[in-house]
C-alpha cells in the first residue's frame, strides 16, 4: 500500500486503483500517517527554511465540530458504481422500490438513480430528531405543503436517523 500512496501523491497511480487506495486511506490511520510523512519529506526538500510544527492534528480537532458535508456531484461515476456494488447488500430492501421508482422516472434521470442512491449514502449529517420541531414549524408555512398536501409532512416524521446512524460517525469511532 505504501508504494501506491507514493504514486498517488505524485498523480501517477493507475486510474483503476485510485478509488481503492483512497478507500484504504479513509479507513487506515497508519496509511494516512504515511501520506503525511511523505508530504513532509517533499516540503523539507523544497523549502527547508519553512518547516513548522504540524497543524493537521489541531485542524482535525477543530473539525470535530464541523458537520460532514453533503454535496452531490456529477463526476466520479466509476467511484459511485463501486460504492453501489459494495453497499448493495446493505440496501437490498431499498433496491426493489428504487428500481421500481426508476421506471417511473423520466429517461434522463433513470440510469443515474441507482448510483445516486449510493452516492448520497456516506455524506449524511442527518437532521437530528430534536430539530423536528423546526421542520414542523417550517413545513406549515411552506408552499410545498399546499402543493404536495399532507405527504410533505413525511419529512417531519421521517425516521431515517434512528434506524441508521450516519456512516461518518462510525468511521470516526473506528479511527479512535
Amino acid at each position: 500500500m505504501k508504494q501506491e500512496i507514493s504514486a498517488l501523491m505524485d498523480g501517477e497511480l493507475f486510474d483503476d486503483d485510485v478509488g481503492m487506495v483512497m478507500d484504504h486511506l479513509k479507513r487506515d490511520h497508519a496509511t494516512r500517517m504515511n501520506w503525511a510523512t511523505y508530504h513532509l519529506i517533499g516540503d523539507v526538500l523544497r523549502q527547508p527554511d519553512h518547516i513548522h510544527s504540524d497543524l493537521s492534528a489541531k485542524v482535525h480537532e477543530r473539525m470535530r465540530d464541523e458537520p460532514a458535508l453533503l454535496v452531490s456531484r456529477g463526476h466520479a461515476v466509476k467511484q459511485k458504481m463501486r460504492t453501489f456494488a459494495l453497499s448493495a447488500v446493505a440496501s437490498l430492501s431499498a433496491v426493489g422500490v428504487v428500481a421500481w421508482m426508476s421506471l417511473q422516472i423520466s429517461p434522463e434521470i433513470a440510469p443515474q438513480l441507482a448510483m445516486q442512491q449510493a452516492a448520497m449514502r456516506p455524506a449524511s449529517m442527518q437532521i437530528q430528531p430534536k430539530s423536528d420541531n423546526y421542520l414542523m414549524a417550517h413545513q406549515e408555512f411552506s408552499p410545498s405543503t399546499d402543493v404536495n398536501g399532507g405527504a410533505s409532512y413525511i419529512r417531519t416524521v421521517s425516521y431515517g436517523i434512528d434506524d441508521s446512524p450516519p456512516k461518518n460517525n462510525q468511521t470516526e469511532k473506528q479511527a479512535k
Partner: protein
Amino acid sequence: MRLCVPLCGLLLAVSANLHAEELPVGFDWLEVAAFAGHQTDYSGVFVYQFGNQVETSSIVHINDADREYEKLESLDGPKRELIRHDGQVWSYDHDKLVQLDSRQGSNQFPSLLPEQLSALKANYQAKLLGVERVAGYNAQVILFQPKDNLRYTHKLWIHTDTGLLLKAAVLGERNRIVEQYAFTQLQLGGKVDRSWGGTCDLADMHGKTLATTPEAAKNYPSTNSGWVADALPAGFNKIMEILRPMPGKHGPVTQIVYSDGLSAISIFIEPDDHDEDDVDGLSSRGAVNLYHKVLDQYLITIVGEVPPHTVMQVADSVRYNGK
C-alpha cells in the same frame, strides 16, 4: 367528488396547451394542484425516498363540507401517525394524541399570491413534459427549472383529471434526485376507504378529546424583530414574521418565513441556551437543509427546501438591524 365538475373545466382549459413545449401555463398547474390537494378525497400508499432511505406511508384525505381531515401513517419502521385537521396537526405519542402545530388561519383555498407568482415566473422556467402514468393514473409532468443554482429543480406529476399531485421529485445539480415521493396505490373520490377511523371519529377528536398544548395556540402574534437576512436568493419574499411558542423551548421564538412560490426558507431566532446538542452547522433530510449558528448570544436556525449552500449563504447574512 363534487368538486370534480368545476375542476375539470379548469383543467380542460389548461390541457388545451398540453403539447406545446414551454408555456407560462405550467405555473397554472401549481394552483390547480394546491386547490385539488385540499378539495379531493383520496386514500393511498406512497413511498418517500431520500438518500438511501425509502419509507412507505399511507395517507387518507377527506374534505367534508369544506372541513379537511387527513391522516398520515407510517407503514414501516416505528409506528408514527400524523393527523391534520383544518390546518392543525396532531401526532400520536405513546397512544396519546398530542397537538404539534397549528397553521395560522384555516387557509382553505390557498393560492399563490400575485407577488409569489411573479417571483416564480422570474426565477423558474416551467416546462410541460407530456403525460405519464403514475399509480395507474395519467399525470401531466411539469418541470420547474430554476434560473440560478440557489434553488432546486422541482418535477411534478399532476393527475390530469383531478389535479392531485401523484408524484414529486426534487432534483439537485445535474438532475440528481434529492428526494422524491410517489403514490404506488391511490383511490380517488367515492372509492376512498374511510374505515381507518372515519370522518366522524376525527371530528369528535377535534372537538373534545384532542389535547391542545399551549404551543399550539392559534394565531401567533406578528412581530417585527429587527432581524434581517441580506443574502436571500432573488424572489424570496417575506411571507410573515411571527413570535411563536415552540415545544421544548422556554420562551417564544421568532420565525421569519420567505418564499419564492415553490420553496420556503424559515429563519428562527431565539436566545442561545448553550445547549451542546444544537450542533453548529449543516444537516439535511431529503430536500430540507437546516443550519444552526450562534450569533451574539442568539441561536439562529435556518430551515429550507433549498440546496445546502443556499441555506449557508442565508445563515451567513443574518444580522440584527433593529434599534
